[in-house]
C-alpha cells in the first residue's frame, strides 16, 4: 500500500497528540483572537453609543465611510493616468479625490497608518527579543527632529540624495536613542521599560528646548512661533496619490510596506533574527547555545529604534514639513504603536493590519466626516479612545478565546473507541 505520510494517522476516536493540539492553539490564537478582540471591542463600543441615545449601526456606518475603506466598495468605471506618460487606462475605482470623498478619506487613513506601522514595528521587534520598548515616542521624536533639521538645511542638494540623507540620519538617530536603553540593559541589566520611558521624556524636553523661543532649531522667519524651519521643497517626499498642495498620500507609505517586509525578512531569514527570537523565547537557553544575549538586547533595541526613527522622518518629509513645540508635546504616535503591536501579535501582517485599523479609527471618527445629526462631534473623539482602550483590554483575552476553543474541541471529540486493528485504519 502506498504511504503518503511518514507517520500513520491515529485511529479514529483517539485524541491528537499534545504537539498537534498546541500547534492548533497557536494558529487559532494567531489570527482568530485579534480579529475577535477587535470585534468585541467594537461591539462594546456600540453598546456605549446606544446608551448615549444614538444608533450604533448608523454611527459605525458613518465611521466606516469616514475611513475611506468604503472606496473599495464603490466600483464603477473610471480612468486613471499612467505615471510618466499621458496615457490612461480603465480602472474600477475613482482615484480623483476632488470627486470622490471616499478617495480623499482613504488617503488620509493610509497617511495615518504609515507612522503607526513604523512605531508598531518598533515595539514588535523589541518584543520578539523579550524586551518592552515603551520608548517608541521618544525614538519617533528624535527621528523627526533630525529629519526636520536635515530636511531644512542644504537647499541645493539633489532631491533623491537629500531625502536619503534625511531618512538615513533619522534612522540612525532613532537607533542610537533606543540603543542607549539596549546598552544599559545589556551592560548593567537596567530594565528597558524604565529607561525607555525616561528617554521619552528626555526627547520631549530636547524638542521643547530646540524649537522653543530662541532655541537652536527654531525658524528664523517668524520668531514669534516656536516652530522649526520648513523642510525645503527638494527634501519633500513625492506624493503618490492625491493633491500635492493639500495633504496627499506620500511615498512614506511604500516605505512602511517595505519595512513590514524587511521586518519579516530580518526575523525569519537572517541569523540575527534567529538569535533575536531565540533570546526572546528563552535568554538562558540562548546563552547556553552560545548566543550573546547582551549583544542581541542592544541590537534588538537599536533596530526597533531605527524603525521608529524612520517613521518620524516619513511624517516630517511626507506631510508635516515642520515640527513645533506643540507637536512634540501632543504627539501620541509612539504610544498608539504599542497598541498596534499588541493587537498585531508582533507579526508583520498583524502590525500592518492593526495599523490600518487604528489609522482608520483615527480618521473615521474625525468630526469632518461624522454627520452631527448622527453623532455629536465632541463625543466622536472619545469614542476612538474608548475603542482603542477596549482593544488593549481584550488583547489579554486571547487566553479566554483559546479556553473557549478547547471546550469546543472537547465537545466535538468522540469518546475513545476500543482499539481497532490496523487494517481498519487504511
Amino acid at each position: 500500500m502506498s504511504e503518503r505520510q511518514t507517520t500513520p494517522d491515529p485511529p479514529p476516536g483517539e485524541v491528537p497528540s499534545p504537539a498537534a493540539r498546541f500547534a492548533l492553539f497557536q494558529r487559532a490564537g494567531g489570527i482568530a483572537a485579534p480579529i475577535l478582540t477587535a470585534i468585541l471591542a467594537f461591539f462594546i463600543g456600540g453598546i456605549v453609543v446606544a446608551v448615549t441615545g444614538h444608533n450604533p449601526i448608523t454611527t459605525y456606518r458613518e465611521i466606516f465611510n469616514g475611513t475611506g475603506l468604503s472606496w473599495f466598495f464603490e466600483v464603477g468605471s473610471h480612468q486613471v493616468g499612467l505615471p510618466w506618460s499621458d496615457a490612461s487606462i480603465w480602472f474600477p475605482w475613482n482615484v480623483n479625490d476632488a470627486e470622490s470623498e471616499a478617495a480623499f478619506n482613504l488617503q488620509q487613513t493610509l497617511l495615518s497608518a504609515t507612522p503607526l506601522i513604523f512605531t508598531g514595528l518598533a515595539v514588535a521587534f523589541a518584543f520578539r527579543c523579550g524586551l518592552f520598548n515603551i520608548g517608541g515616542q521618544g525614538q519617533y521624536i528624535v527621528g523627526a527632529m533630525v529629519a526636520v533639521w536635515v530636511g531644512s538645511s542644504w537647499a541645493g542638494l539633489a532631491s533623491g540624495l537629500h531625502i536619503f540623507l534625511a531618512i538615513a540620519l533619522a534612522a540612525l538617530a532613532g537607533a542610537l536613542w533606543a540603543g542607549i536603553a539596549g546598552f544599559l540593559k545589556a551592560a548593567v541589566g537596567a530594565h528597558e521599560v524604565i529607561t525607555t520611558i525616561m528617554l521619552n521624556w528626555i526627547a520631549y524636553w530636547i524638542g521643547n528646548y530646540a524649537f522653543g523661543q530662541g532655541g537652536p532649531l527654531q525658524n528664523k522667519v517668524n520668531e514669534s512661533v516656536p516652530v522649526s524651519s520648513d523642510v525645503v521643497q527638494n527634501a519633500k517626499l513625492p506624493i503618490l496619490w492625491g493633491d500635492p498642495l493639500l495633504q496627499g498620500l506620500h511615498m512614506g507609505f511604500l516605505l512602511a510596506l517595505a519595512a513590514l517586509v524587511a521586518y519579516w525578512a530580518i526575523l525569519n531569514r537572517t541569523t540575527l533574527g534567529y538569535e533575536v527570537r531565540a533570546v526572546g523565547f528563552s535568554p538562558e537557553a540562548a546563552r547556553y547555545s552560545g548566543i550573546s544575549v547582551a549583544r542581541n538586547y542592544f541590537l534588538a533595541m537599536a533596530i526597533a529604534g531605527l524603525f521608529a526613527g524612520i517613521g518620524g522622518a516619513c511624517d516630517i518629509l511626507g506631510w508635516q514639513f515642520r515640527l513645533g513645540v506643540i507637536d512634540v508635546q501632543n504627539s501620541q504616535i509612539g504610544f498608539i504603536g504599542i497598541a498596534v503591536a499588541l493587537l498585531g501579535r508582533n507579526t508583520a501582517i498583524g502590525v500592518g493590519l492593526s495599523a490600518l485599523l487604528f489609522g482608520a479609527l483615527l480618521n473615521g471618527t474625525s468630526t469632518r466626516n461624522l454627520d452631527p445629526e448622527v453623532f455629536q462631534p465632541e463625543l466622536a473623539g472619545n469614542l476612538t479612545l474608548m475603542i482603542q482602550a477596549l482593544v488593549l483590554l481584550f488583547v489579554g483575552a486571547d487566553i479566554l478565546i483559546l479556553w473557549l476553543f478547547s471546550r469546543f474541541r472537547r465537545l466535538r471529540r468522540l469518546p475513545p473507541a476500543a482499539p481497532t486493528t490496523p487494517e481498519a485504519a487504511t
Partner: protein
Amino acid sequence: MSDKGADVRRIHWIAALLACGLLAIGLACGGGDDEGSAGGETTTEATTGSGEGVQVGLVSDVGRFNDRSFNQSALEGLQRAEDELGITGRPVESRQTSDYVPNLSSLAREGFDLTIAVGFLLAEATNTAATRFKDSNFAIIDYSVKAPPFKTNPNVQGLTFATNENSYMIGCLAGLMAERQGGRQVISAVGGIKLPTVDIFIAGYRAGAKQCNPQIRTLIGYSQDFVAQDKCKEIALNQIAQGSQVIFQVAGGCGLGALDAAKERNKWGIGVDRDQSNLGPHILTSAVKRVDQSVFLTAEAVVNGEFKGGTDAVFDLENEGVAVGKISDQVPQEFIDRMNEVKDQLISGELTAPATL
C-alpha cells in the same frame, strides 16, 4: 495530522473570515445611502436671521472644543451666530496635527461661505487651504495675515485682539489693590509659551499697573507649557515668595495651577481668555478675550457681504472684542471707577497700552 484537526482548523478559519466579511459587507452595503458622504449640517430654527443659507465652518486646534477657553469660546460665538443670524454652522474638531489641512479643505470643498480657523497652530494649514481654494473665504483667530506664512492672500482675514487694552485696565486695578494692601508693592504674571499673543497681555498689565501705582514692580515668568498645571503652580509660588500679591495667569490650562497657588497663599488671581471668576473668591477679575464676539461679528460681516479678506480685523475695547470679567465684590467702587476712567482714556486715545514687552 488527523483529519479531525484539519476539519476544526478549517472551520475556525472559515468562521473568522466569514465574521469579518459579513461585518464589512453589512457596513458597506448600508453606506450606499444618500447619507453616506459627510456633509450634514446642523439645522437651526432661524429667528430673525437674514443669514439663511450662509454656511460658516469652524475648525478647532488640538486643544479641542472643551478646552474651557479658546476653542470653546469660538464655538459659543458660532452658536450665537446660528441663533441670532440664522446661519448654518459646522464645528469641526481637530484631534491631531494631520487633521488641520483635511478639515479646512473639506469645508472649503463643500462650498462653505466662511471657514474660521482657531489659533496660530492652524496658520500654515489655513495658508495652504486658502492658496488652493482661492474662491473660499477664510479667517484665522488670533493671528495676523501680515505675518508669515501668509503672503498676499486676498481671501483670508486675520482676527486680532487688542488684549493689551483690557490688561492695562486690569493692571491698574491690580496696582491699586496692592497699594491698599500695603507691604511689598509687587505683582506678577505667569505666561505659557513666550509668544506675542501671550506677551501682549503682560505688556498691557505691567504698563497699566505702573500708571495707577508708580511704585509697583511686575515679575514675569514663563512655563513653556499651556497644559501641565504643576509648572505654572511652581512659578506662581516662587513669585509669591518674592512678594507678589496678584498673579495674572496667561497660560491656558497650565495657568489654572498658578491660580491654585494664589488660592493656597491667599493672594489674588486674575484669569485669562474667559471669565474665570467661578474658580473661587480669590479671583480678582479676568482678562477676557471675546473670541466668541469675533466669530459672531465676522459671521455677521459675511452675511452682510462686508467680509474684507487680506486684512486684519482688530477687536478691542471699543467693539467689545476684549473685556474685563466679573470683578470680585471685595474691590471698592472707587477702584472700579478709576479703572473705567482708564478705559475711557484708552478708547479715546489719551492713553496707549504697549503691545510688546
